[in-house]
Structure formats: C-alpha cells, structure tokens
C-alpha cells in the first residue's frame, strides 16, 4: 500500500446553513491521478479547498501527508491551480519568469534577489511544461492553454508531491487540452507527482485518471476508473441516459 497523501475522515462542510458536503470519507495515495466530477454546484471546488486548508470543515478531520491539516506547515509540497487564474488581469505587466519565480517566496525570504540558481530552476520547470521559449513574454500575451502550463510550472518550482487543479481545461481548445493531458501524464508517471483534478469532461478524465471521485447530493463516491463505464458514470451524476 502506498503512502496516503490526503485523507478525509467524516468531513462535513456548510456555507452558512447550506450544507454542501456531508460526512465525506476518502483517501488519495501517492501516485494517484484522481478525477473529480459532478454536476454544477456539487461542491467540487469546495472539496478541493478543504483538502488544502483554504476552507475549514465544520466536522471531521483532514490529514495531509499523515499530519492533521491544522498542524501542517510545509505547503511547498502542495501545488494548487485555482479557477481564479482564469480571471487574472490580461494586462498585468509581469513576465512568465517573474511569475514562476514568485512561488519561491518561502525560500527567497524578504530581500534575497533572484540569482543564477533560481534562474536555472525556473528554466528547468518551464522546460518541463514546454514553455521555456516564453520566459520573457508577458503573461497576458499567452493563450489559455499556455497560461495553464505556466501556472503548472509555477507550482513545480517547489517540487510539489501533489498537484491540485480546479477545472484547468475550461475555455481551452481541444488541441491544447490534449497537450495539457499529456503533460499531466508525464508529471504523474515520470515525475511521480500525485494529481487531483476537477473536470467536466467525463469521457477523457476517465481514460487518464486511475480513480474517479463523483460528487452529488452532498456525498462522494469513489470508483476505479477501469472498472466503470462512462455511461454508468453519467447516469450516476445526472440520473440520465445520455451516451458519451
């Protein structure tokens, strides 16, 4: 059995009086590629934010790397690409390099200026995501898919063990989606990074992820992706007979 990276024990979460997660239990093991699916408003993003401690659950216990999240400090092990990155000001005057470097905050401290080591590290992570040619380009000049690659690189600079991605493929053309999926495969298989990704694209995520988490009616159901058909997943989510 692999090391458990995330563990939920009896987690419930509400926005005011509106409960959206009710007594959720699961774990994510090292090397997993988890696809999180569910209809709109099924608290997929909320689940992710509880996993990384941005939101605090009403009940239950979250463990990250076998440590209670309340005591967990080493967030360099955790990469998170939120939905908000899509709303970033397109005219923000920062280069790809400046953005990737900024995530070394905890290592850079207050005054330490970027040195040769950091430049090399930045180049290396940009090379992994295939964006090294764009290091001096303004972030606003990139396409949606390229931006996502930069944000993945920004997370990679801290050598994370797990990467959380909240709908990284929304608004991105099919060609770029394919490239992003192959990048995720590479990170998962070659770099042994555990992945958890929220997606609406059930057909594709089922083929890439090894486990599928389905959220609906405040509950979470876990499936091994090779043991369930896409049609059955759809039925379970939407209670519908749609064909994929």
């Amino acid at each position: 059995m692999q090391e458990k990276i995330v563990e939920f024990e009896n987690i419930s979460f509400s926005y005011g009086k509106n409960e959206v997660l009710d007594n959720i239990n699961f774990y994510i093991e090292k090397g997993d590629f988890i696809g999180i699916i569910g209809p709109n408003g099924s608290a997929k993003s909320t689940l992710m934010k509880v996993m990384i401690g941005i939101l605090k659950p009403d009940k239950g216990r979250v463990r990250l790397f076998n440590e209670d999240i309340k005591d967990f400090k080493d967030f360099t092990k955790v990469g998170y690409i939120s939905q908000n990155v899509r709303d970033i000001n397109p005219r923000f005057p920062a280069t790809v390099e400046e953005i990737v470097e900024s995530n070394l905050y905890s290592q850079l401290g207050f005054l330490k200026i970027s040195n040769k080591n950091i430049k090399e590290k930045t180049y290396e992570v940009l090379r992994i995501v295939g964006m090294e040619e764009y290091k001096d380009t303004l972030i606003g000049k990139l396409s949606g898919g390229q931006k996502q690659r930069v944000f993945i690189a920004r997370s990679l600079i801290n050598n994370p063990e797990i990467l959380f991605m909240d709908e990284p493929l929304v608004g991105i053309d099919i060609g770029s989606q394919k490239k992003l999926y192959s990048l995720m495969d590479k990170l998962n298989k070659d770099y042994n990074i555990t992945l958890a990704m929220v997606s609406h694209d059930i057909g594709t995520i089922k083929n890439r992820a090894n486990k599928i988490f389905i959220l609906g009616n405040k509950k979470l159901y876990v499936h091994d992706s090779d043991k369930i058909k896409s049609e059955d997943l759809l039925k379970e989510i939407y209670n519908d007979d749609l064909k994929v």
Partner: protein
Amino acid sequence: MLDIFSYSFMQRSLIMGIIIAIIAPTIGLFLVLRRLSVIGDAISHVALAGAAFGLLLGIYPVYTAIGFSIIAVLGVEKLRKEYSEYAELSLSIVLSAGIGLASILISLGNTSGIFSYLFGSLALVTKKDIWVVSILGSFIIISVLFLYKGLFYLTFDEESARMAGVPVRKINTFFSILVALTIGISMRTVGVLLISSLMILPVATSLLISKSFKQALLYSNLFGIISVVLGLISSFYFDLAPGGTIVLTALLILIIVMVINKIKD
C-alpha cells in the same frame, strides 16, 4: 536655466518632489494593478480634513493629515469586508466622510493656510517639511523593498500567494498604512487634490510600454521624476501651483507615449 535651483526654497521643493516622485508611483503601481486606483482620491480628501484639523488646533498639519489618513485606510479595509460585492462603495463612503469633515473644519476658524495643502506650494516648504518627508519617505521605500516579493505575488494572485506562505493580511494592512503615509507626505508639494494623479498617471504611462514588472516599476518612477522636475520648473517660471504643473506634465507624457505607441502600431 538651472539657476532656479540656487534658491533654497526651490532646492527644498526639488528634494521633496523627487522623494515623492519615487514613492507615489511605486505605491500607485500596486494600487492600479489591484484595481484600487481610486483609493488615493478617497484618502486624500480625508487627509485634507486632517490638515484643516491641524491648522485649526495649531498642530503641524502633515502629522494630523497622516493620522486621519491612517484611520481612513483602515476604515476602507473594514468597509470593503462589509460590502464585499461593492468594493468601490467603501471608497465613496470614505471620500464623502472626508470632504464633509474637511468643509466643516475649514469653515470653523482660521484655516487660511489650507490653500497650499489643496494644490501644493513651493515657497511655503519648510526645513521641517524636508525632514519629515525624508524620514517617512525612506521608511516607505525601505518597507516596499522588504515587502516587494510578497506584494508582487499577492497583487498578481492573492489565493496562491497565501498558499505559498505570503502573510497576505499583514502585508495588506501594512501596505494600507504606507498608502496613508504617502498621501500625508505628498500633500505639501503636490497638494491633496492632485496626489492620486501622481500615484496613477506615471503608472498608466509605464503600463503602455513595460515588458516586465521590474520595468513597470522603473518606468513609473522615471515618469514620476520627469513630471515633478519639469512641473516644478514651470511652476517657478509661470508662477503656477506646482501640483497642477506636475500633474499636467505627467498627463502630457502619457499622451506623448500613447501617440508614439499608436504611430508604431
């Protein structure tokens, strides 16, 4: 032509002006990128009430203006939480409070000196002004240097910055105080009504041509300094309020850069 800087009051104005030309656009860059460019307007109106309060009680007006401004920025932060869906509403509330209070305080008694705080003044700059601006100005610059990486990260993407260990709330509060200090010390040269223009116009120009964040910061400062120096010189020769000449110079630079950019396209 540079003879004008042999006058000691012009030397004082130039020193103060250059310090402000570095600070105001630096603080302004972060404000603009966080879509808070109007905050300068709101706070400066409260600073005006502070200056009037100082004149009324015979206290050094820059101190009272800074005190009022700090209360105002902290008030804005609180109100922004209260009206999270209407963030700009908090600025309008503070602006109204400031202008209301200022007009009452000005009408209360002998506040004839208030004019120089509205539009800035060259002749009335004292040695004390220089000392206060130099000390507080250095404090602001050093603080921004220390906070630079955190400020950059949270300005770009607050949620990820928090994850990366940036103390977002502390930096936000501290930065608000820096905004208040900047307005407080700039009012002597540029005047309350035009401070926010000096925080915004050089930044607006630099955003047209910057190819990185460091360039944006550098160009903002450069355009700020050019505006202040040319503005002070023309203020002296044409006997105009320095605040107006500085801001119009900054505007002229913005228009020139816009036109050059259009031609290039």
